[in-house]
């Protein structure tokens, strides 16, 4: 077999020398052919800030969700909780965006309940799961306690959340356990994510656990030998001290 060079033929067919052009509708993006590493201005991937303006929750949903978050990560004498970290703003933005819509997930049917090892199998993307489950939660509470979830005592709220977690409480038409697992995961995300997404406001959660954030270089600390390292946290937005005049 011979391997003759076909580069000339190929080149003449593939748009001549404009190999670095933006993705063509015909060919997808073309790179290489001796033209080096591609570089285009204004094509970077800066941080995704979530949706700043859009929101998903109704006022009532927002209030209920904020209360759930505050029970999952309470504010106490030890330090800030989901409320101080503004986890609810994080969740509202997440639910309004691609995550809430389940846009990157495989959401084709048929849907079935699945085993415990098969993961998320709800036919609802996250935002819809929240919407249906929040309504069911309030229905459940009104049936038994004559008040919506947000109107109950903290002890009652904890009791209900525990029941959902342990699958002792079920909802009509939507899985209470799937919702509980998801909102717990999302609340922890909002508490600890970079503040650019709206939660972990002023890096309160990072300060609380003493995570120094998105620092770039710890070479000076490799030989810490078990000693505490005191470094104020830094976000992808920097930190307040960087902007002060002191």
């Amino acid at each position, binding site marked *: *077999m011979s391997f003759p*060079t*076909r*580069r000339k033929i*190929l080149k003449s067919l593939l748009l001549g020398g404009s190999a670095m052009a933006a*993705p063509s509708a*015909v*060919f*997808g*993006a073309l*790179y*290489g*052919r*001796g033209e080096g*590493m*591609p570089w285009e201005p204004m094509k*970077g*991937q800066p*941080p*995704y800030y979530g949706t700043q303006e859009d929101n998903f929750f109704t006022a009532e949903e927002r209030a209920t969700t904020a209360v759930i978050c505050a029970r*999952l990560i*309470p504010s106490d004498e030890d*330090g800030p909780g989901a409320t101080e970290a503004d986890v609810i703003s994080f969740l509202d933005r997440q639910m309004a965006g691609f995550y809430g819509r389940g*846009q*990157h*997930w*495989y959401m*084709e049917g048929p849907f079935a309940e*699945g*085993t*415990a*090892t*098969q*993961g998320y*199998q709800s036919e609802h993307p996250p935002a819809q799961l929240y919407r249906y489950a929040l309504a069911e939660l309030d229905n459940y509470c009104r049936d038994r306690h004559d008040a919506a979830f947000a109107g109950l005592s903290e002890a009652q709220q904890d009791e209900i*959340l525990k029941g959902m*977690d342990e699958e002792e409480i079920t909802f009509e038409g939507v899985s209470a356990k799937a919702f509980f697992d998801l909102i*717990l995961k999302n609340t*922890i995300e909002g508490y*600890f*994510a*970079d503040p*650019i997404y709206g939660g972990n406001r002023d890096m309160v*959660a990072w300060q609380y*656990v003493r*995570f120094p954030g*998105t620092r*770039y*270089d*710890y070479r000076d*600390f*490799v*030989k*810490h*030998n*078990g*000693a*505490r*390292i005191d470094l104020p946290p830094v976000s*992808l937005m920097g930190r307040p001290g960087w902007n002060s005049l002191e």
Partner: protein
Amino acid sequence: MTNHLPKVDVVLVGFGWTGAIYAEKLTAAGMEVLALERGPWRDTPKDFATTFAQDELRYYWRHGMFQETSQSTVTFRNNGAQTALPMRHWGSFLPGNGVGGSGVHWNGQTYRFLPSDFVAKSHNAERYGPLPEDMTIQDYGVTYEELEPHFDYFEKICGICGTAGNLRGDIQKGGNPFEGPRSDEYPNPPMEMTFSQDRFEAAAREMGLNPFPVPSANMSRAYVNPLGLQLAPCTYCGFCEKYGCGNYAKSSPQTTIIPVLMQRPNFTLRTDSEVLSVEKSADGTRATGVTYVDTSGERFFQPAEVVVLCAYPLENTRLMLLSEIGTPYDPQTGEGVVGKNYCYQVMSGATVFFDEEYTNGFVGAGALGMAVDEYNGDNFDHSGLGFIGGGYIACYTTNARPIESHPVPDGVPGWGSEWKQSVRANFLKTTTVGVHGASMAHRSNYLDLDPTYTDRHGRPLLRMTYDFTLNDRRLTAHITPVAEEIARGMGGREVNVAERKGSYDSMPYQTTHNTGGTIMGNDPQTSVCNRYCQSWDLHNLFVAGAGLFPQNAGYNPTGTVAALAYWTVAAIIDQYMADPGSLVQA
């Protein structure tokens, strides 16, 4: 309608580590090479700059670096009696997407498999007698000795940092005394270790074990590789696995091969182009090329003299099944080969909680660790144990990314004030001693096409039928207590053991080490590819990746994946080009 394109010498399906390796060697040999990559172009300054790479939510929890399951996913079930359901989002493993593939978001733990791992069947049968009938393991058909120069070359391309344990047969102090003989030292010294590794090392030595630095693709110093590309010293920022490195300090296709490749006139890369199938000649003896679709939805036929599958193992297997190449594996009869011997990794560990000392996990790197190998492979006598294989035991400090890593001791609830306070109290005071266990093939663990669910192009999804086996359970039950003993010697307040119990769960992250499905071997009746990773059915179709592993060893796969790629590409250049045809007579 499908557009026909001009023929190339070689078309590569997928452009991660193996695609870059093939392309570099084949273009250097003068061939016209085209790589088709499903995902986008990605490079350090544009896509993982230090100013925004360290974004835990975006890159891990929102899967910024990975294949989107909306593009394609797998369906999963634990056994054939269940109905497989789609993994609607990723969990236990994280397939990559885009230029560099998973080689962008890996940790960089770069081991060589043991010599006995390549002859697992014959070696173990000879030492311990006949193996269980449903354990469908086999020899690779290629030996460690044959792969050694290729391991060595890949380590030099990556600038792997480590301490040799066996230099041409001489055992070296401070290295892994069980490793196969090496022709050369590692190109760079090991990384500087932190407190947790120091404690692990002392505890392991106390037990008479031989701790050694994990071979690392995070640089311990500045380095220039054989292609003239430069890597920078690692800054221990704690964002390796699931992230791209903005610092040019982690070896990846982008940092070690691609810039050189892009200078070559006989190399072309098309991104955003997903291969749908490999096409065959009318007589079924050769691949004629591949059909792919670009983002506009238009289809193209790309003819080629040689086709190489360089996608992730799960996708390589699916492409062969969709293209009807080779006989699909049938778990009922044990016949057929494509999809056979899907294996994974059996992970367990022991977490140490300290009272006084700080482990400061944020000062970390993906391959920053110390390991012991006494319980890996056949480094210990398995007589009477009822299992074969093993795993390394290691103490890594990779990160303190708080959404992912906030361990609390056993008995603490999963939410509420008590949980929150325990997270705070333990956040910078824990480390884990992990067992990285081998996964032996079993007759009932396999991959095939799902009968129900399809991808966005209407093609069946791959179906994974998998559970841990008796061998896995005995292996983890034997070795996890050793990890616990080391952990107890490290001076902490308490140790919690995370055993590998129950059925395989597809959701908690374990590791992106999915192997098998396109396995290699000496017999076309039991393998998809011969010892040169060449299809038994179509002589001009070659396969790369961990799908070739007949069973998975107790190590991270990338070093062996790369060595197999260099081994095959050498066979193509030295033998196949002169006389195209099957390189092994069946």
